[in-house]
């Protein structure tokens, strides 16, 4: 008996160690970024253009660029994703075709972002001749998060109890009105959570925008969607790998990393809070 409990204690100790080492790694990482980055953060850093070959000044164009790209991506992916999910889960006859489409969408959600970058390069930049610009980057990021948004929206739609649909249809309400007034409102928080996580993902991705939108440095802010932009993740990459002043610009790098991490994790945190709120509120 004692031996059995010894095994249990040993196992639990290992499990706790594993779990807490992960938590500790994340904690240490965030603290490290915060401590090293906070010194660089000032109003000037957030609101000014870079100066002197990006060794001084701020990162405002990169923040703005990331905002444009992310906003563009969600504007493309959200309507497409939600409407597709509505078709797949509310209208389509469930059969082998729909099952294959679902598996396909699911697999595409796992395709590496660099592959999406190649696709964006091939289709938007080269084939459609948009060039490297906000439009190409936003489309690429939009399609990158499209499978995730379809998946999350389908999940949210499926979680609306079938009895709600039956009750509404049983009252002689049409299918579209049922979807619009009963299904969508109840699925909305779930769709929202998925979309916000998509926003976080789009904002933090580097590989898809490297060849489709991001510029090393732009002297002016973009004036149309056919201009190249700077973007936070790419800025981090460029400052850390290219150029002759890598060591000198470390504070700027840490500052940029801190802004990017705060932005992405902030967005994710909003999604997590919304979700825990719905889980508590849900009654059915």
């Amino acid at each position: 008996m004692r031996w059995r409990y010894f095994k249990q204690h040993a196992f639990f100790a290992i499990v706790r160690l594993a779990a807490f080492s992960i938590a500790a790694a994340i904690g240490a990482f965030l603290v490290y970024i915060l401590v090293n980055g906070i010194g660089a953060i000032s109003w000037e850093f957030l609101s000014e253009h870079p100066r002197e070959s990006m060794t001084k000044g701020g990162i405002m164009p990169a923040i703005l660029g990331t905002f444009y790209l992310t906003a563009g991506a969600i504007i493309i992916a959200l309507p497409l994703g939600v409407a597709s999910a509505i078709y797949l889960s509310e209208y389509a006859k469930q059969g082998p075709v729909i099952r294959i489409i679902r598996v396909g969408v699911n697999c595409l959600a796992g395709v590496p972002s660099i592959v999406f970058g190649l696709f964006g390069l091939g289709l938007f930049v080269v084939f459609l001749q948009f060039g490297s610009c906000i439009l190409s980057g936003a489309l690429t990021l939009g399609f990158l998060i499209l499978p995730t948004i379809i998946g999350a929206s389908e999940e949210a739609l499926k979680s609306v109890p079938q009895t709600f649909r039956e009750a509404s249809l049983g009252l002689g309400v049409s299918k579209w009105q049922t979807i619009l007034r009963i299904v969508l409102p109840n699925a909305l928080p779930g769709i929202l959570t998925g979309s916000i996580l998509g926003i976080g993902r789009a904002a933090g991705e580097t590989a898809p925008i490297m060849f489709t939108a991001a510029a090393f440095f732009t002297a002016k802010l973009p004036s149309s969607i056919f201009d190249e932009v700077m973007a936070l993740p790419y800025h981090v990459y460029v400052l850390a790998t290219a150029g002759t002043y890598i060591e000198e610009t470390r504070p700027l790098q840490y500052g940029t990393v801190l802004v990017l991490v705060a932005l992405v994790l902030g967005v994710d945190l909003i999604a997590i809070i919304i979700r825990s709120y719905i889980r508590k509120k849900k009654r059915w």
Partner: protein
Amino acid sequence: MKRKIKETIIKNIFLFIALVSIVILALIVIFLFIEGIPVFKVVSIKDFIFGIEWYPTYDPPSFGIWSLIVGSFIVTLCASVIAIPLGVLSAVYIAEIAPPLIKEVFKPVVELLAGLPSVVLGFFGMAVMAPWLQATFDIPTGLNIVNASMLLALMAVPTIASISEDALYSVPQEFKEASYALGATRFETIARVIVPAALSGISTAVILGMARAIGETMVVLMVAGGAAAIPESIFDSVRPMPASIAAEMGEAPFRSDHYHALFATGIILFGLTLSFNLIADYVSHKFKEVGSATL
């Protein structure tokens, strides 16, 4: 009757949009192939995959990506060695052992880790880990397999942990109760009943975690060192496929052989992650435990 027409129109609008999405997603595959296939006019598929010389800018160039494939697999395997035990054990902790309050905190923390931009981890690897590794082990460069694998592991852990946790969580309560009622300890119940019942979900989690690691770009681009050669030790540099694509695409002239070769590398990478995902899907459906019986 008017309403019926309206309903039909609405349904067809949704059908149309769904088709647009599916076509777009299909286009990804199509464009990858359109831009990648032409390289096989200058190099055979066999030489492309198994050739060990990757000199795309030499004259004449040679396009053999075997060392890139090996690089990808090595960092993925090393990352798995770290990430699988950490991820699965964390899932066991969250699902079975953690007190409710810690569980509430732990799950979002793991999720935040999943959301960390990869460029940030790459940056951390370059700025902090590499100098430390170099000094500690007295090696020529800290940008190597060990460094990249540790960071990739960090990226794969949330995938493995959260999917495994779902699988553990969905093991019916009745199984646990039956085991406890037979006098098993919590450890025995976890090891003999819960984990085996959740095994298909855990396998899915592991496969998807590995798929995430093999496709990850920024970390390997920044910290794997970039040497296109077969490594001899875990402190050697490698050049995994995503790193090669990301690093060279900027310089490869449009529609040159080099450009096509990079797209072809993308096809291989796509094929690999696709098979990982298909296997995961198959495993999760095929071996799904049928829940508790209903009367």
